[in-house]
Structures are given as structure tokens and as C-alpha cells.
């Protein structure tokens, strides 16, 4: 933390500059928005201290054509790494693009810009055989355990299938299924093999989902809101289980959530997304305790505080128009910072130019033109 720099950190040649790759469809002329302004910052991820790089998003972007020449940037210039044994949290509201990023990493969506690299090599999921090989390494856990399990199949069937598919060498599939159930602490395991999803509670179903993902013995686990459908009282237990699995199996874990408080407790690094872009990133404790970006600040101000009852509702602006600015998160592309129409600090420049991530400390960065005001305590030391 000795040399925080604002603005203009030279990008290393190995990192993306956000230039669309050649296979990307040509952007329609109506699409008026510019690329992000400024050199993208090179952030040293705190997650790297945990283990080697497993999966990497490099200038990743996904556009959707809306017709009439309009383009929606569901994800734009997203770069970060997942490291073995580390948890990276992707935090944002519905529609901020966090699930799109996960789907791009999982190979379920094709990027229109940038690439995904697994252990340094560009990912190719062009054929079903290659996609299957990729899935052996990178597994996905879905949000809703009530709809992600097939109601007509037993727990044993759900787990035996991926074992047979991804580990053809395994002779005793039954024993492998029992091991998986014990791994996710569904004990006594033998009792659960023959059960159907409707016989399980939400937490038990989600454990089955974890076990199913782990059946392939992956290096990377992409967990898309893995606890948001569960009761508050068992969320902690599930996160504890994920954390335990992460360290025992040395998993590289992407934890997608809209609950920034859980990211504080669970993740090494936090990435905050808004409007398809990463607007702030850094060590979990730093980002949550000293948020730099106005959006992160809003997100944290919205969390109830047991020590100051009523503070959140008092600060909320209610009444007509209170929700009017809501629609701005993701929509057809517009120029400028995506948060500018909700941002209390927005100036003209914010509506015209889209800021790139700028370094605050070697492992923290935020994308904002008003960091001198929004995070004065963080930026003062620069001068």
C-alpha cells in the first residue's frame, strides 16, 4: 500500500486493452457509446496469494443485439483471475451482468469480445467433446436447488451420471457416489442415495448440487448465487461447507452474489459489477470497509445495520421518483459511465466518457471520474 497511483498506470503488454477481438460482430453505427476511456489498470489480485492461476477472463465481453441497431452490453471488458484455493466474489444487482460473466466462463455463452483462458491456454468449447473436457475442469452450481435437480430422478442417479461421464476409469460408481455425499456432509450417505429431490430440504438439495458439480473433480467451481434461495439460518452453514471444500480440494471458486456482506466474510477478493462492467475491485475487507466507487458505497449503505437501527430507511429517498432512476442498470448502450444517471456525484464528463479501472493501491482499483471526491481518503495520499 505504499504507492497508490491514480490515473495512467501503464498497461502491461500481456494484458488486454479492451479492443474487440476480430471474430466479434461489427457494432452497428447507431451504437454511439465509446470504449472505456483511459488505460485499464493492472491489479494484483489478493487471491493470487492462495495458489496458482486457474481460470482467467481476459477483456471479456458479451453483446446482445436488441434490434433497431441497438446493442446491450451485458458484459464489457471484464478481466480477472480465479486462483486455486481462493474465493473471488462477483457482487452486483440483478441485471448487472454477473451471471453473464459466469456463463461466459462456463462456456455456455460465447464471448463477443475477449477470451477465457484455462491455465494460460485459450478455451475452446467448439465441439461437444471439447466442451465436455472443459466441463471436467470448470463446473457450475446453479442458484435454485428447487429447479436444478430433476424431480423424477434419485440423488444417486444425479451423482452417478457425472461420475460415469467424467471419470470413466472409476470402477465402483456406488462408492464414488457415497464419497461425494460424505464430502458435502449428507450423512448417513447410504440413506440419501435413494431419495428424490422432493424428500430433501432446500439446504440438502443444494448440497446435492455441490456434490454433482464436484463429481467431475473440477479445478474451478462457478457458484451462481448458491445460497440466495436458502433460509438465512442455513446460508452460513452452506458457505462454511463451500469454504471447507475450497481448502480441501484446492478449488478456484467464483462466488456470485448480490449480498456484499456475505462476500466480506467469504471471499478473498471482491469484484463489484454494474451495468456489465467491473466498477471496483480489491481485497474483500478493504472494498467493504472503505468503498471507493459511489455505487459500492450505495450498495453498502443499503445493507441493514444492527448497530444503527433505522439508518438505512432514513437515508433512502422515498416517494415519487424514488424508483424512477432504477431502470438505468442495464439497457441499450449509452455513452458515459453506466452509473452516471443514478450517481449523486455525476458531472458532465461522467455522462460522456466511460471511465476505465484506475489503480488505488496495487491490489485495488475503481472505475470512476470522481474518485477524488468519492474516495478522498484513499486518493489524498497520492499528492
Amino acid at each position, binding site marked *: 500500500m505504499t504507492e497508490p497511483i491514480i490515473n495512467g498506470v501503464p498497461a502491461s503488454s500481456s494484458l488486454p486493452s479492451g479492443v474487440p477481438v476480430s471474430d466479434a460482430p461489427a457494432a452497428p453505427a447507431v451504437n454511439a457509446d465509446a470504449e472505456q476511456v483511459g488505460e485499464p489498470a493492472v491489479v494484483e489480485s489478493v487471491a493470487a496469494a492462495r495458489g496458482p492461476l486457474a481460470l482467467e477472463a481476459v477483456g471479456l465481453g458479451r453483446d446482445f443485439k436488441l434490434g433497431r441497431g441497438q446493442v446491450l452490453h451485458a458484459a464489457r471488458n471484464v478481466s480477472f483471475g480465479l486462483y486455486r484455493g481462493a474465493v473471488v466474489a462477483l457482487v452486483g444487482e440483478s441485471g448487472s451482468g454477473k451471471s453473464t460473466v459466469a456463463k461466459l466462463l462456463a462456456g455456455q455463452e460465447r464471448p463477443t469480445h475477449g477470451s477465457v483462458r484455462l491455465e494460460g491456454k485459450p478455451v475452446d468449447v467448439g465441439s461437444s467433446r471439447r466442451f465436455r473436457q472443459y466441463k471436467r475442469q470448470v463446473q457450475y452450481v446453479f442458484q435454485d436447488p428447487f429447479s436444478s435437480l430433476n424431480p423424477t430422478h434419485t440423488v444417486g442417479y444425479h451423482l452417478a451420471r457425472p461420475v460415469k461421464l467424467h471419470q470413466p476409469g472409476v470402477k465402483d460408481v456406488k462408492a464414488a457416489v457415497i464419497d461425494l455425499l460424505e464430502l458435502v456432509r449428507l450423512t448417513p450417505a447410504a440413506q440419501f442415495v435413494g431419495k428424490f429431490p422432493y424428500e430433501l430440504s432446500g439446504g440438502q438439495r443444494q448440497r446435492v448440487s455441490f456434490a454433482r458439480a464436484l463429481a467431475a473433480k473440477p479445478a474451478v467451481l462457478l457458484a451462481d448465487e448458491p445460497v440466495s434461495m436458502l433460509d438465512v439460518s*442455513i446460508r*452460513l*452453514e452452506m458457505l462454511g461447507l463451500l469454504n471447507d471444500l475450497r481448502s480441501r480440494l484446492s478449488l478456484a471458486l467464483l462466488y456470485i452474489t448480490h449480498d456484499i456482506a456475505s462476500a466480506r466474510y467469504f471471499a478473498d477478493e471482491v469484484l463489484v459489477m454494474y451495468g456489465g462492467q467491473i466498477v471496483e475491485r480489491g481485497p474483500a475487507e478493504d472494498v467493504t470497509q472503505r468503498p471507493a466507487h459511489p455505487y459500492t458505497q450505495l450498495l453498502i449503505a443499503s445493507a441493514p445495520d444492527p448497530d444503527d437501527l433505522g439508518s438505512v430507511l432514513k437515508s433512502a429517498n422515498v416517494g*415519487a421518483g424514488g424508483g424512477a432512476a432504477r431502470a438505468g442498470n442495464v439497457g441499450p448502450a449509452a455513452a458515459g459511465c453506466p452509473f452516471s444517471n443514478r450517481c449523486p456525484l455525476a458531472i458532465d464528463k461522467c455522462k460522456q466518457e466511460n471511465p476505465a479501472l484506475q489503480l488505488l493501491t496495487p491490489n485495488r482499483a475503481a472505475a470512476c471520474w470522481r474518485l477524488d471526491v468519492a474516495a478522498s481518503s484513499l486518493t489524498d495520499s497520492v499528492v
Partner: protein
Amino acid sequence: MSPILEISDLSVVYRTSAGDVRAVEHVSLELNPGEVVGLCGESGSGKSTLAYGATRLLRTPALVTSGSVRYGGRRLTGGGDPVDLLAMTHHELRAVRWREIAIVFQSAMNALNPVLRVQEQLLDAINAHLKLPRREAHEKAAELLDLVGIPRNRLRSYPHELSGGMRQRVMIAMALAADPEVVIMDEPTTALDVVVQRDILAQIVELKERLGFAVLFITHDLSLLLELADRIAVMYAGRLMETGGSQDLIRDPAHPYTRGLLNSFPSIRGPRRELTGIPGSPPDLRDPAPGCPFAPRCSFAVPACGAVDMTLEPWDAAPGAVHRVPSTAHLTACPIVTPKVSQEGVLS
């Protein structure tokens, strides 16, 4: 002040071939005029069953087996004695529903009809419960949108054209169509983001101040109630475990279950606390063990827990003492964990 809604000794079972599921057992809860009471519990704790049982919205196999629900709204009773909703005929209930007690249903995101415009759905509620001329009914629909801060031109929108937060606001507007005295909100913000959720909660508080209705707010997220509720009732396995003023309950939780809930959600501010959560899972309500249903998951459990009768007693009273207490007092169903035990350092 007499309560506007007084649920006494209410029990609800679900008849199944494998035996009765005792979803709500001998629950008493009062709601005072203009008050927000938070009803908090895990999935399957019986919180929704309690609310729907009290308002006669359950049908077979659900069966109310005991209790009374007395409603004391002035418009209905004319200042006389409260009426028992459970003894009413269906015809009489029609006069209560929406005009006296309205409900914002769970998963309100999907509770709107996708093929009807907002206007038609608001008019539906207005016409069913208020006899207004056509023009006035239309004006009323527009006023309802004003009330929740949605532009009037959205009357012509279909639900899919609205954001989640806006749909939720429409649902709230619809519940307020006939100016009810009591609004029951069943997990109204569960599917929403934190920022939108905050706006909706603030809106509920603001409307409550303006229109003076009482709210029974059902949620599994105790942290929401910290902000919103005047009083909180904590429910587990069909029983009330603890009730009290929000401040009392948060700062000095009496029941071990409440303590577990409070220790379950990570805080965003202040020092990082050691979080423990609540290990284990809720009991099978078909064949409940005698005594406290939380005992198998409780770290303070002693053999005597099997004989606990689950009546709510004042938190600061000596075990076994029985007195009549006002509804605002801090009550707990756990006679094992007392302030004395807490102070002696047996409990953290």
C-alpha cells in the same frame, strides 16, 4: 389501546395420509393499530400458515383446530366489540377482505396476471370491493400508482414491461386499493435486490405513516425487521419462540433460537464477528417430540427442555412465574435460558 387484530391460541394442521402436520400450534399474537409487527422464521416454520389461517385463506387439507381471531376495525364494528373472523360466514368475510384486511402475497413478482395491463388488474380489485362509477374507478387506479410513486402512464403497461421493484409497488398499490386497516405482507421483498428492497421498505414505512394501517410483515430475514418493525415475533416449528420490541429483541435476544438467527447473517459494518449460524435442520412436524422443538439444535439444551410447555413468559421474570403482561413486553418461550443464567456467563 385495544388491538386491531388479536390472534389467540390459533392452531392449524395439514391433514395428510401420513398424519397431521401441525404447522401452527397455539399461537397468540396481537397487532395494534398503526403498528408494524414482524413475523420471522425459517421456511416451514408456519409463518405464512399463521397469516393465512388467521384470515381464512387456507383450504383443505389445512384445518384450523383451535383458537380465535378477533378483528376490531372501527368501520366494521362501529366501535363495538371485535368480531371473530373464524366464526364468520363467507358472505361476511367479503366485507372484511381487502377493505379491512389486505394481503401482499409472496412472490408478488409473479402474482400479477401477465396478459392484463396494470390498469385492468387495479380496476379488478377496485370494482370487486368498492362500488365506484367508472370514471372514479379509473381515477382511483391512477391515484394508487401516484401513491407508490409510479408514473400514471404505466397504467397501460403489461407486467413484463415493469421492473421487479415496480411490479412489487403495483402489488402494494393494489393491496391499498380499498384503504385497509391491516396489511399482511408475505415476504414482499424476497426476490429483490438490496437497493430496490431498501426503497420498497422505506415506501412501506412512509405509506404506513400517511395512511395509518397496521402491518404484519412476514419474512425469513430478521435483518429486514431491524429496520422496519416496531415489534418482532420469532416463530419456529409452528410455535412462537420469542416476542418483543425490535430494539429489545435485537440488543438482548432471549431465546437461543433468536440468538442463532442474529448470529447467522454477516454484518457489513464494524469488526468481523465470529459467525456461528444454526447447525441442524427443523424437526418433522408430523410427529413432534414433547417440549421445546428447538432443543435438538440448541447448544444450551438440558434434559428439562423435553418438559417445556412453550408458553411465553417475560424475559426478565423468574422461571415459573406467571403474570398477565402487556403485549409489548419482551417474552420468551425458553425457561432454561434466563437473564440470570446469561449474566453468570454460562451463555455467550
